[in-house]
């Protein structure tokens, strides 16, 4: 399967209320590729994702999407009002109609088959992320945009979710644009990293970005050291969990 360009964002700038949110940012996503947007809070990552989705219009620059591109979107944090009676099955079909067997298979793909009849208010944060992912996948997307997909999920759940996302790419060959605030989490799953702080600080393969001075400056030595820890324990996931939890406090 040869890679096909799905999305190009070229020299995009956005100013809101006199504040420059994005400055001359460019980005490309092709099929069978995971691109991660990382950067500190307020770096404009979600804004850039929303521009890529067509939810926001930039002041300057171009956004190109492959004609007929099917988008799947997992927004940051979704809570459903308690007054709305909605099962996971129904929630998942809000994006595209589907049969129960289809939904069951979709939820099974993301490891959440058991919650199909649960009210959406009764599932955990991690289950909600999986339900959102299933909803996006049911639309057979060419491009998946995930905004902080592991937020509110415990650490072991975070690695499971990244594994899942990486498997989805392999199985379906779709492109994935993923927002995260930490490199060490997305490292293993990612093909290309864009380190953002209102402008593109550095970009490239995760290993390359991890050594980039601009990255080290942005995240500090602490972040870099944690990355080293990650590499060191790459084959010992259980040890790793403890180590990462200990370093999580000043993320």
């Amino acid at each position: 399967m040869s890679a096909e360009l799905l999305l190009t964002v070229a020299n995009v700038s956005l100013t809101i209320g006199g504040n420059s949110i994005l400055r001359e940012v460019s980005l490309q996503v092709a099929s069978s590729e995971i691109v991660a947007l990382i950067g500190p809070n307020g770096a404009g990552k979600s804004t850039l994702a929303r521009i890529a989705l067509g939810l926001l219009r930039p002041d300057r620059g171009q956004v190109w999407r492959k004609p007929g591109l099917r988008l799947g979107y997992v927004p940051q944090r979704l809570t459903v009002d308690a007054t709305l009676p909605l099962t996971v099955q129904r929630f998942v079909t809000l994006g595209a109609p589907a049969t129960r067997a289809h939904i069951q298979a979709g939820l099974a793909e993301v490891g959440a088959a058991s919650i199909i009849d649960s009210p959406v208010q009764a599932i955990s944060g991690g289950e909600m992320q999986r339900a959102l992912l299933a909803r996006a996948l049911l639309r057979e997307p060419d491009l998946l945009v995930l905004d902080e997909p592991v937020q509110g999920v415990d650490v072991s759940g975070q690695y499971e979710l990244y594994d899942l996302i990486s498997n989805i790419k392999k199985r379906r060959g779709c492109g994935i644009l993923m927002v995260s605030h930490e490199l060490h989490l997305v490292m293993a799953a990612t093909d290309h990293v864009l380190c953002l702080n209102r402008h593109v600080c550095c970009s490239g393969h995760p290993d390359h970005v991890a050594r980039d001075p601009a990255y080290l400056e942005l995240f500090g030595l602490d972040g870099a050291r944690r990355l080293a820890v990650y590499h060191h324990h790459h084959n010992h996931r259980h040890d790793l969990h403890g180590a990462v939890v200990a370093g999580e406090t000043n993320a």
Partner: protein
Amino acid sequence: MDDFLLRALAGGLGVALVAGPLGVFVVWRRMAYFGDALAHSALLGVALGTVLGIDPQLGVIAICLLLALALALLQRQRRLATDTLLGIFAHTALSLGLVALAVLETVRVDLVAYLFGDILAISPVDLYWIWGGNLPVLVVLMLIWRPLLAATVHEELAQVEGAPVFRARLAFILLIAMVVAVAMKVVGILLITSLLIIPAAAARRFARSPEGMAALAGGLGCAAIGAGLWASLRWDTPAGPSVVVAATLLFVLGHAIPSRSPR
């Protein structure tokens, strides 16, 4: 049964049947205050209708639709919170209406009937307004149901998925305006929101799906109309407020019954 009673029942049911399904969205989207603000502008509509020499009901509908549009547009700015904006609109509209009616010396308006409704005085023409206005509302609500529900859960997600979010929201706001304008006859300006909110809230406990909740809210609203009218006859109480009290009793009863399954 007397004619006026039949008309009261027919008018009340016509309003409740539509207010219930529309009301569930008002509850889900937390827009209770929005209906109130629209209702408060109704007196201004009566004054407008009188000045223009048209049916006051038409004036009310026009003002409600205009206000709904203005609010929908103003919500896009972020300087004032929506509830502040609604508060300003609602009370200005009500005051303007009262002032305008006082200035129009030649017009005698039964203020109490407008404020609290006069369901027992519903005329055949009123019935045309209620059913002729509300049936299209129900049809449009069914047409926009899917995108409106998706947008209620998460607006941007629905937009990415290609749902006509803005059109659905605009249509919904106009539907509320329409129902508020014709429901005024039944429970009056001050009590209209109760017909949108209380049956919907009472239905939540027993509903398993959004559609189930909407249907049940319509049914409970009709029950409240029947019970309220009966109580009003039996004890000679004001009809509109009796309907609201009946709806609240249904809500309380529903919550008193122990449920078999949680949620």
